Every structure is written in structure tokens, then in C-alpha cells.
């Protein structure tokens, strides 16, 4: 091993992911990160509402936000990008987000094994002590599956 370890940069990766696809459509943005966690922001937008007459973001985009923050927390913990697939994701909704408010999704990867990564997180609209939702997820490392030849990430 002569090459220097490449520092995984969640902010740069978020920018790359959010150029297109579902994260790009949701306009997911980098918010903050630590050694084993990443926080992303889902901006408020009228066409993402969960009800016709209330200006509150739907729960679907909040799941997408937490799913994406989860994947990024796994790569930040591993300090490398390896393709993962979501196996199981649970979201408990504590309350609706505030009207017109962006939502922050913060996911923490608390355990990685050879084949799986375990993640927990919260979604909040300003105060992490008063979450909108909590989540728990299990992800599988699909790069290590010898039956599959990964052609993309």
C-alpha cells in the first residue's frame, strides 16, 4: 500500500449525489458531519407537501432524507465509498414538521460488521432535542457479494 488513504469528504459526495436522480430532485444538501454521522438538509418546497391544505413536508421525502444521510454516515464511518443497499428502514413520526420549514436529517452509523451496517437517526426542524421523527435502519454491503459484479455505485 503505497498510496495515501483518501479522506472521505461527505460534503463533496453530497454535492455529487445531489446533481441528479432522486436526491437531486429533492435538492438534498450537506448540513454537517462528525466521525460517524452525517446531517443533510431537505429544503421546504410546495410540491413536496403531504396534505393539500397544510404547508408541511410529506413523510416520503423525510424517509429519502434519512436514507441518504444513513448511506453517507456509513461511508463517513468507513472513510470510503462502498455501495450499500437498504435492507430495513423504520421511521417513527413524533410530530409534523413546522409549516414552511426545512427538515434536517441526521444519521449515525453505530456499528459496522463485514456484511451489514446499523444506523439510527433523527429528523428535526431546528431543534435536535425536539425531533420530527426518529429512524433505525440496517444496510447491506453489496460490494462484497461475490455473486454480483458491481458496475456502478
Amino acid at each position, binding site marked *: 500500500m503505497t498510496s495515501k488513504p483518501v479522506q472521505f469528504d461527505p460534503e463533496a459526495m453530497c454535492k455529487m449525489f445531489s446533481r*441528479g*436522480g*432522486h*436526491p*437531486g*430532485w*429533492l435538492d438534498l444538501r450537506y448540513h454537517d458531519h462528525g466521525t460517524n454521522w452525517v446531517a443533510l438538509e431537505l429544503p421546504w418546497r*410546495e*410540491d*413536496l*407537501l*403531504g*396534505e*393539500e391544505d397544510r404547508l408541511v*413536508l*410529506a*413523510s*416520503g*421525502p423525510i*424517509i*429519502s*432524507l*434519512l*436514507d*441518504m444521510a444513513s448511506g453517507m454516515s456509513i461511508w463517513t464511518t468507513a472513510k470510503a465509498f462502498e*455501495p450499500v*443497499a*437498504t*435492507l*430495513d*428502514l*423504520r*421511521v*417513527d*413520526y413524533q410530530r409534523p414538521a413546522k409549516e414552511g420549514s426545512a427538515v434536517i436529517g441526521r444519521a449515525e452509523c453505530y456499528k459496522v460488521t463485514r456484511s451489514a451496517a446499523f444506523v439510527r437517526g433523527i429528523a428535526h426542524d431546528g431543534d435536535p432535542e425536539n425531533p420530527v421523527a426518529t429512524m433505525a435502519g440496517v444496510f447491506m454491503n453489496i460490494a462484497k457479494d461475490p455473486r454480483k459484479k458491481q458496475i*456502478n*455505485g
Partner: protein
Amino acid sequence: MVDRQNEPLAEPVPDTVAATAKLTPYARSLGIKVGGMEGGLPLLTIEFSNIIEGRPGAFHGGATAGLLETAGYAALRTQLAADDREAILKPVNITVQYLAAGLPKPTYALGRITRLGRRSANVTVEAWQDDRERLIASAVMNIMIAEPE
């Protein structure tokens, strides 16, 4: 409310355009549509497109969850309307199982009411592509039901 007296007893052919218009703004902008009815509950469809893509050539897990959740609420709202119940729904939780990669194909989702009580409902949802027996994802949802004041 809708006058139900003149409805035929057999399962009516739904107005899928009107049913789609009742989905959330989020569901409609993602491209989810009501495609028909199965067992009296709405069958939802979505076409693959760039805005639901995660890994290249595959559904984003969040888009799959959004489809499942939308199908769960559509099933519950349809059942409550059939029971002549006016209700405000409050999400409690959703647990999604990802069973296979969602490929760039038309995708379907159907909710089933596992339990419907006075104050809460438990809904199971399944999503599949070309093979009804090979699910790409399933979900269980708990939803609180409040009566309008």
C-alpha cells in the same frame, strides 16, 4: 360528502384521474398514479424516471418508501370512505423491508388493511414490478385515526 346511494353494488370502475388528483402533492409530483382497483382498494403505479433514481438504473430507497406509504394511506382512506367515516389520519410509523432492487420498470403498490379500529389502523403494503409474486419491497404502517372536530 359523496352521495353513495346511487352507486352500483358491484366494484365500480374507478375514475383513476380523479383518484390520482386526491393523492398528496408530493405523490403526484413524484409521478404516482392510481391505476385501478383490486379488492376494493386502490392499486398505485409509478413509471421509472430520473427523479426516482438512486444508484444508476435503480429505485432510490426513499422513492420506494414514498410509493409504499402513499399506497398505504390510499388504501386506508378508501376503506374509511367505504365505511362512511370521516377521519383525520396521523402517521405513527412505517417499517420498510427492501427485498429486491427496483429496476427501471413500471412498479405497482397495493395496501391491505390488517386492522382497522376506531382510533388506529395497521396497514400492510406490497410493491412489485413485472412479477406479482416477487416483491421489491413491503411495509407495515401504523396510523392514528382522529375524528374531525
